[in-house]
């Protein structure tokens, strides 16, 4: 029971902190936007296959966000496992 309470308190702390951070960030304008516009850097011109997913995108496109997270996590775990195995092979 005590452990559950501690876990609950930790979760509330983390969620409140995250909500506060997100609220603060969304209220503050981005001064770098003009620099990006000057350099004509657009997101769609990027080399990446997928566009970046941040908190609001995951919220609005939950399924797509979940898929991206799952693909990314499996991909990174798989690639790292493969590379580390290859590194160990000469031993």
């Amino acid at each position, binding site marked *: 029971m005590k452990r559950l309470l501690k876990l609950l308190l*930790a979760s509330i*702390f*983390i969620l409140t*902190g*995250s909500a*506060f*951070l*997100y609220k*603060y*960030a*969304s209220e*503050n*304008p*981005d*001064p*770098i936007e003009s*620099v*990006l516009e000057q*350099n004509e*850097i657009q*997101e769609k011109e*990027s*080399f*990446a*296959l*997928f*566009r*970046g*997913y*941040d*908190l609001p995108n*995951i919220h609005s496109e939950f399924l797509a966000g979940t898929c*991206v*997270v799952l693909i*990314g*996590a*499996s*991909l*990174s*775990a*798989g*690639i*790292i*496992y493969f*590379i*580390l*195995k290859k*590194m*160990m092979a000469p*031993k």
Partner: protein
Amino acid sequence: MHIPDGILSNTVLIATAACAIPVVAYAYNQAKKELSDRIIPRSAGLAAFIFVAQLINFPIGVGTSGHLTGAFLLTYTIGPWLSILVLTLVLIIQAFIFQDGGVLALPVNIVNIAIIGCLSSYIFLTLFSRKIGRKYRSVQILRIVTGCIISLQCASLIISVEFWFSGVLDFFTVFKLLLFFNTLVGLIEGSITFLIISFLEKVKFARL
């Protein structure tokens, strides 16, 4: 933390690449000596967790974002050199496939997140021995949270210098903002890291 393309100057990009390449190469050689059949799946599992944790970004407002880095957690569990290597690979995947951080700005992100994050965590862990927190749980929490905040603040300092050298923004403008934000992110990261480390200690994870 992930800096996109088109913000920092070419000089800064080249300088960070010149720093990142030898350090990652050294980390590769050191990690090779530490590798074992037990540590590989654990590194891969932690990499997957860190990938997911880094996807949740909070835009800070100076062309960069705040998020959990996982550098302290990795350094604590698998050591600094393997951590640098794992974080570098995660950053490469994020940049090339998920557009999280610029491709040209990849060396900058490797220096800020992987190298500075892991080495500062390693120095902190060397200074404040693992034995300190064993007896008292509150001391252990304090040590982990402080370690996370310090690793993030070291990265903040380097990011501010990079912005300043690029002539984008004044050093103190960026540093003040990152200092405030990364302290909050550090508190959250520290709490999550403590919960994970407590769990890993219970299941007798390697290197603990």
